[in-house]
C-alpha cells in the first residue's frame, strides 16, 4: 500500500476512533457546567497525547519493540509489574464504562434496559476479536466512527460566539464551584492522555510491521490524526455549552446528554447522538480489550497478535476472552455507566506517571531509538507531561471526593 494512502487511512481512523466514553462524558459535562471555559483542557491534553503517541510509534518502528516490551526490558520486571497491574485494573474499569456506553446507546434506541445488552455487546466484541484481523479492528470499525463528526457539523449549525471560544483556549479559573471545575479538568486530561493508547499504538505499529521507513507516516498520523480527532471532542463540548448550559441542564446521566444534538438536527439528532455514542464506545471497547491482552502477553513473552489464529496464541486469546466477559459484571451489578466513566478517568490520571516516566529514558536511549532520539522540544513535552501527570495523580482522588 502506498504511504500516502496509509497516512490518509491512519488519519481517518484516528478521527473516527478519537471519541470514547470518557471523551464524550467529560466534554459534555464540561460544556454543560462551565460553557466554553474548559476548552483549554482538551487542547492541552491533545498536544501531550500527540507527542506521546508519536513517540510510541517511533519506538516501535525503530527498535521493533512495543512499549510494554521495551519498558520491561529496560527497567526490569520489578518495575514493570507496577504499571502492568495498574493498567490492567484501569483497563477493566474503562472497558466496563465503554461497554456501558454501548448499552446506553442501545437503550436509547430501543427502550430495552441497558443491563440486558451487556452480555450481547461483550459477545460481539469477543467475536470480532476471535474472528477478525488487526486491519479490520483498526480500519473497519473506526470508519463507522466518522459518524461522530456530527458533533463538528453541529458547531456550524449552532454558530457559537467566536471571541468567547478563542478566549477559553487559555486556562482560567471559574468564579464558583472551583473543585468541580478542577475535577472535570483532571477527568478531561485523564480521558485524553489515556495510557492504553500508547501501549495499543506501539503494538499496532508492530502488528502492521512498521520499520524506520514509516517514521514519516507515524509523525503524520499521530499529529494530524489526533489533532483533527480532538476537534470532535471540542465539538461535543461546544454543543453541550450551546444547547445544555442555557437550559440549566447539567449532565448527570447519558439520557440528558442525548438531548444535545436535538437542537441542531431535530429528532434525528437524538438518533445521531445514540449512534455516535454506541459506535465510539464499541470501537474503544475493542481497543481496550485488545490492549489488555497485548500488555499481559508482552509482559510475559507469550505469542501475541490479532492477526494470529487463536490456536497460535492460546494464552493471548484466552486473556481477552476472559477479560471482556468479566468486565460486563460492572454493568450487570447495576453501576451507573456515567459515574463509572468519571471514576475510571480520574483513576487513569492517578496511574499516568508510571506510564509516562519511562518515555523520558527510552526515547533518549540509543540502544532503542538509535539516531531518532527525542529532540529538546519532545523531551520538554515529556517532562511537562510528567510533572502534569504527577500533579493530576495527587489531586485526582481528593477532587473526586470534593468535586465529583
Amino acid at each position, binding site marked *: 500500500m502506498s504511504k500516502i494512502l496509509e497516512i490518509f487511512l491512519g488519519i481517518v481512523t484516528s478521527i473516527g476512533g478519537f471519541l470514547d466514553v470518557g471523551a464524550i462524558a467529560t466534554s459534555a459535562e464540561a460544556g454543560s457546567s462551565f460553557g466554553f471555559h474548559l476548552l483549554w483542557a482538551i487542547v492541552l491534553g491533545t498536544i501531550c497525547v500527540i507527542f506521546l503517541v508519536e513517540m510510541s510509534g517511533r519506538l516501535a518502528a525503530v527498535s521493533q519493540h512495543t512499549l510494554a516490551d521495551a519498558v520491561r526490558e529496560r527497567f526490569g*520486571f520489578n518495575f514493570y509489574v507496577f504499571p502492568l497491574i495498574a493498567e490492567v485494573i484501569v483497563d477493566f474499569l474503562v472497558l466496563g464504562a465503554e461497554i456501558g456506553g454501548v448499552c446506553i446507546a442501545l437503550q436509547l434506541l430501543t427502550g430495552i434496559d441497558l443491563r440486558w445488552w451487556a452480555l450481547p455487546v461483550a459477545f460481539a466484541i469477543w467475536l470480532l476479536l*476471535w474472528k477478525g484481523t488487526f486491519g479490520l479492528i483498526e480500519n473497519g470499525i473506526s470508519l463507522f466512527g466518522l459518524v461522530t463528526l456530527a458533533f463538528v457539523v453541529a458547531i456550524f449549525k449552532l454558530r457559537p460566539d467566536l471571541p468567547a471560544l478563542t478566549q477559553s483556549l487559555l486556562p482560567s479559573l471559574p468564579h464558583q464551584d472551583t473543585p468541580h471545575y478542577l475535577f472535570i479538568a483532571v477527568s478531561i486530561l485523564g480521558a485524553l492522555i489515556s495510557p492504553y493508547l500508547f501501549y495499543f499504538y506501539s503494538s499496532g505499529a508492530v502488528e502492521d510491521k512498521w520499520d524506520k521507513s514509516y517514521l514519516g507516516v507515524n509523525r503524520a498520523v499521530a499529529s494530524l490524526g489526533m489533532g483533527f480527532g480532538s476537534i470532535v471532542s471540542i465539538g461535543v463540548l461546544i454543543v453541550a455549552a450551546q444547547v445544555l448550559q442555557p437550559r440549566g441542564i447539567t449532565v448527570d446521566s447519558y439520557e440528558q446528554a442525548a438531548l444535545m444534538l436535538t437542537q441542531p438536527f431535530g429528532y434525528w439528532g437524538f438518533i445521531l447522538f445514540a449512534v455516535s455514542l454506541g459506535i465510539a464506545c464499541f470501537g474503544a471497547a475493542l481497543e481496550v480489550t485488545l490492549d489488555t491482552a497485548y500488555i499481559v502477553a508482552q509482559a*510475559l*513473552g*507469550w505469542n501475541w497478535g490479532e492477526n494470529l489464529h*487463536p*490456536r497460535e496464541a492460546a*494464552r493471548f*486469546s484466552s486473556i481477552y476472552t476472559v477479560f471482556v466477559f468479566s468486565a460486563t459484571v460492572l454493568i450487570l451489578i447495576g453501576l451507573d455507566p456515567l459515574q463509572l466513566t468519571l471514576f475510571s478517568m480520574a483513576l487513569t490520571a492517578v496511574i499516568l506517571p508510571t506510564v509516562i516516566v519511562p518515555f523520558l529514558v527510552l526515547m533518549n536511549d540509543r*540502544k532503542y531509538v538509535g539516531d531518532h532520539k527525542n529532540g529538546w522540544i519532545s523531551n520538554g513535552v515529556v517532562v511537562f507531561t510528567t510533572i502534569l501527570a504527577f500533579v493530576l495523580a495527587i489531586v485526582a482522588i481528593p477532587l473526586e471526593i470534593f468535586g465529583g
Partner: protein
Amino acid sequence: MHLIRDVLDNQLVDRNQRKMGKVDGIVIELRPGQPPRLAYLETGATALARRLHPRLYQWIFALERRWGKCELPYRIPWAKVRDTGIDVEIDVEAEQTPALDYERWLRNHVIKHIPGGK
C-alpha cells in the same frame, strides 16, 4: 555483552522465531578456584515470582506443585543461546519444551473446543 541490559527480561524465541517467554532469571555457577560460569537462562512463573518477593515465590511454587505443570522454572543451558540481539534466540523447538506447557494445555483443552478455535 551486558547480562542485565541485553539478556535479562528480553524476549526468548526458538530457532523458528516462535515466542517462548521472557528471560526471567539468569543462573551463574560458582566454581572453587575458577571464574564463575554462565550456566542457564530461566523462564517461568516461579523464576519471576522469586524476583518479586520470597513469599509470592512460595505461593506460586505451592500452586504449581498442586495443580500446575512446571513447579521449577524451565532452564535453558547457555550453550543453546544463538543470538542476543533484539530477542534472545535459543536453539530449541519451543513446542517441545516445558516453556509452552500452559500454551499447549489451553490450546488443546479450551481453545480447540470453542467454535472457530481449531
